[in-house]
C-alpha cells in the first residue's frame, strides 16, 4: 500500500520502473517488514487455490492432483440441480442476514450506551462481563441454550410458566421456523460484547472539542449521539459492514451443527454442513471443492457489490 501511494504521488518525468526501484531502496525497511505478511498471504490464501483444480476432476486421494480424470463442470451441474442445495442456500442466507443485522445494530447501541457512562470502573466492568461469552466455545454455548430452552425444567419455560404467559412448556428447539431466531439470539448473546469493543474504540477517537462545541450550541445527549458519535464511527462501521457482507455466505457451521436436531434439519443445514455431509463425508472431495468455489465467487461478488453501492451513495470507497 505504502509503495503505491508514493509511486502515484511522484513526478512523472522519470521512467516508471526506475522510480519504483528507487523508492523501494529508500523504503527497504518498510518492504522488509511487510514481507512476512505477504508470504503469509501467499501461502495461506493463494497457494490453496491450486486445489480448485479438484472441482473439475473426479478426485481420488490415492493419485496426485494432475493424475486424475477430468470431468469439466459435472460437479457444478450436479450441485445446481440438487434441490437440497437451494434449501441450504436459503438457510445460510437467512441466518447470515439475520446475524448481520443483529451484529451491527445491537453492538452499536450497546457501545453508544456504554460511551455515555461517566463512571470508568462501572463501564469497564460491564464491558468485560459483556465480552466474556465470546471466549466460551460453541459446544458449551449450545449446551447452555438447549438446557435453557428445554421443556424439562428449562429456565425460559419456567419463567414463562410462572408469569402465566403460557400454560404448556414450549418446545423451542423442535420448531423449525424458530431455529433461525434461536441461532441469531444465541450469537448475539455470545458476540455482542466483543463486537462492541471496536465501536467503543472508534468512539473514543472522536475529537472532544466537537462535543464541547455542541454543548455550547445547546445540544442534549441524544442530539450529540445522533450528530457527533454516530457520524464519528461511520467509516469504521462501513468498513466492518462491507467486509462482513463478504462473509455472508460462509458463516461456518458450528452453531447450526451443535444446536440442530432431526426435527429442525430443514432449517438448520447450512452450506458448509452440506459440503461436509455430501462432499467430504462421502469422499466426494471434488463436489466439496465445487461448493467451496461457489462460496468464494459469491463472496467476492457480494463484497464488490456492497462497496459499489456504498461508493455510489457516499462517493467514498473502503476497498
Amino acid at each position, binding site marked *: 500500500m505504502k509503495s503505491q501511494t508514493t509511486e502515484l504521488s511522484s513526478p512523472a518525468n522519470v521512467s516508471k520502473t526506475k522510480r519504483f526501484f528507487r523508492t523501494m531502496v529508500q523504503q527497504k525497511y518498510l518492504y522488509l517488514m511487510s514481507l512476512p505478511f505477504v508470504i503469509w498471504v501467499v501461502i495461506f490464501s493463494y497457494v490453496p487455490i491450486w486445489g480448485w483444480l479438484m472441482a473439475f476432476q473426479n478426485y*481420488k486421494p490415492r493419485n496426485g492432483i494432475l493424475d486424475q480424470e477430468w470431468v469439466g463442470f459435472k460437479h457444478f451441474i450436479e450441485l445446481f440441480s440438487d434441490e437440497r442445495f437451494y434449501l441450504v442456500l436459503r438457510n445460510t442466507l437467512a441466518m447470515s442476514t439475520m446475524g448481520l443485522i443483529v451484529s451491527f445494530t445491537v453492538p452499536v447501541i450497546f457501545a453508544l450506551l456504554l460511551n455515555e457512562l461517566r463512571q470508568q470502573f462501572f463501564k469497564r466492568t460491564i464491558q468485560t462481563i459483556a465480552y466474556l461469552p465470546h471466549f466460551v466455545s460453541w459446544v458449551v454455548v449450545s449446551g447452555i441454550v*438447549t438446557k435453557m430452552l428445554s421443556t424439562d425444567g428449562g429456565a425460559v419455560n419456567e419463567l414463562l410458566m410462572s408469569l402465566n404467559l403460557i400454560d404448556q412448556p414450549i*418446545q423451542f428447539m423442535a420448531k423449525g421456523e424458530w431455529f433461525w431466531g434461536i441461532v441469531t439470539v444465541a450469537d448475539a448473546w455470545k458476540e455482542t460484547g466483543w463486537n462492541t469493543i471496536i465501536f467503543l474504540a472508534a468512539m473514543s477517537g472522536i475529537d472532544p472539542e466537537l462535543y464541547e462545541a455542541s454543548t455550547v450550541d445547546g445540544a442534549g445527549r441524544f442530539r450529540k449521539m445522533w450528530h457527533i458519535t454516530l457520524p464519528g464511527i461511520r467509516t469504521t462501521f462501513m468498513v466492518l459492514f462491507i467486509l462482513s457482507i463478504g462473509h455472508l455466505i460462509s458463516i461456518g457451521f458450528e452453531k447450526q451443527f451443535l444446536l440442530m*436436531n*432431526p426435527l429442525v*434439519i430443514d432449517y438448520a443445514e447450512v452450506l458448509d454442513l452440506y459440503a461436509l*455431509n455430501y462432499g467430504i463425508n462421502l*469422499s466426494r472431495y471434488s463436489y466439496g471443492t465445487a461448493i467451496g468455489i461457489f462460496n468464494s465467487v459469491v463472496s467476492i461478488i457480494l463484497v464488490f457489490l456492497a462497496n459499489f453501492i456504498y461508493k455510489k451513495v457516499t462517493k467514498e470507497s473502503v476497498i
Partner: protein
Amino acid sequence: MKKVKLGLSLLLVMTMLFLAACGNNNGNAGTSNSGSETGNGESLEPMTIRLASGDNNPQWDNMQSDIGKFLQEKTGITIEQEFPVGGSDADMFALMVASDEYPDLVMPKGNVNKLVDAGALLDLRPLLEEHAPNIMKVYGEYMNRLAYSKNDDAIYTLPLDPVDHTYFDAGGGFQIQHQVLEELGYPEIKTVKDYENAIKTYLEQNPTTEDGQPRVGLSLNGGEWQILISVTNPAFYATGAPDDGEFYVNQDTYEVMMHYQRPEEREYFRWLNHMNDIGLLDKESFVQKYDQYKAKVASGRVIGLIDQDWDYAEAENALKAEGKFDQTYANFPVTLDETFKDASYMGTGYLASYGIGITVDAKDPVRIIKFLDYLASEEGQILVNWGIEGKHYNVDENGKRVIPADVLEQKNNDNNNFKKQTGIGNYFMSARYGDGVQDSTGNYYTTNFPEQIIAAYSEADKKTLAAYGKTVYKDFWPSEDEFEERKYGAGWTINFDTASDANVTFQKSQDLMKKYIPQAILADPADFDKIYDEFLAELDKIGVQKMNEEYSQLIKDRVEMWGE
C-alpha cells in the same frame, strides 16, 4: 540356542537401560525387572503408536492404568489414542484422507472403504503370515472372512469382533425400571401393548419422584446419531427382523429394501406416535443431546428406554454408584404383537466387521503387528480381559481365575472409574476370543461366562429375574437355534463404494429418515399416514429403488465370497 541367549542378554541390557531411564519417575522400577522379560528377543525401546479410534471412549486411560503401565513395561509401546471431536467418525476419517496424513493405527468402524480407496491401509496378509501366529490362530477357519472384497483379497483390518462368541446375556431390547416391575407385580412384558401398559399404570400411580421431580414415561435417544440405535433399529427387532443396518434383507432371495419401507415397521412407528399422543413419550426425545439424555437417565426419572446397554451404561453406572438399584433397568424383547419373534440373535457366523488396521504411514509395521500379536496371545488376552494376576484376579487352588469381591464390587457398581484405573476393557485392540471360549488352563478368556454374569447382577436384577423364573435376561429372547444363520453376516458390515452414486442416495435417504420419522412420530395421529406416505414418496423420488438393487448385489457377492 546361542542366538536366543544372545537375544536374551541383549534384551536384559535394553531392559536395564530402559528401566534406568524411567527410574526417575518410577522409584520402584528396579525391583520389578524380573517381570518384564518377553522372551522373544524383541526391542523394548520406547515407541509411541498413534491410534485413531472412531468410537469415543471417555474412559480411555492414556496408558496410565494398571494394564497400560504393564504393557508399556512389557513391550515398550505407548498407545496415544485420538477420538472424533464433536462430530461423527465419518468426518474424522474423511478429513484424515483429505489431509493424507495417517496415524500408525486406525479403528475406522464403517469407514474402511474410504481409507482403502485412498490407499491408506497396508495389506496385513504378509505381515500376519510372517509375524503373527497368535492372531492367525485366533481367527483360524475364519481367515477367509477377513478378505476385503470379491475383487481384492487383501486384509486391511483385523476384525475386533470376538471369535466364537456365545451370547450369554442380552443388552438390547426395551428397558424398564426394576421398581416399576416390582410395584406392578412383575407383569408379562412381551408386546408393545404390555410395555405401554406397564409404563402407563406406573406413571399414573407415581407421577413424580420422591423429591417431586416429574417422571418421564419413555425417553428415546433420538437427538443425535443414536436415532439409529434408539428409534429405527428397534423397529427391526419389534417386527421380527434382524438388524441389517438400514436395510431389510429377504433371507431367501436376498432382495433388499430400506427397512422403513416395510409396512410392519410403519405400524411400529404408529405405536410410537400413539405413545406420544397419550403423553408417555418424552417430548424431548428428538431434541435432546446425548449428554442431556444421559443426565435424564442418571436422574432416575425415566421409566422406560428403548436402547442398547452400551449406549445408556454410563448413566446406569451413575445410578448404581449412588446405590439406586431399583431405578436401573431390566431388558425385554418386545414385539409389535405376538406374531413376531425378536430376531436379535439370528446368527451371523463370524462377523468380521469393524476392525483395526495399520496405515501406510506407520513407522514400524512389524513391531506394531507383533504388539497386536502379543495382545492376541493367551497371555495378552487374559491381561486385557482379566487384568493383572494378584491385583485384579487370583487363581484359586483348582486353577480357576477368580475376581476378588472388592474388585468385582467396583467393577459392577463403579465401572466408569474401574475402567479408567485398571484399563480392563480399554485394550481390545486385536484379535480375541469371545465369551464362552476356554484357554489352555480351562478358564474362560473373558470375564463374561454364566456364573460371572450372574455374580455381576445387582440384587435388583436378581430379584426381577427370579420373579420371572429366568437366570439371565437372554432367557427372555428367542435363542439362536430358532433361526437360520444369515449367510452374509450382518448388513451393517457391508457398505457401498465411496463416491458412488448409491452412496449419495444413501446419504439422502438418511437425511429424509431423520426428518420424517421424528415428524411422523410427533404428529397428530390423524396426520401420521399422510406424513409417512410423503416420506415413502420422497424415498422413491431420490432413487432408493436403484440403490436397493445395488445393495442386493453386494449381499449376493458377500454370500458368494464367504460361501467358498
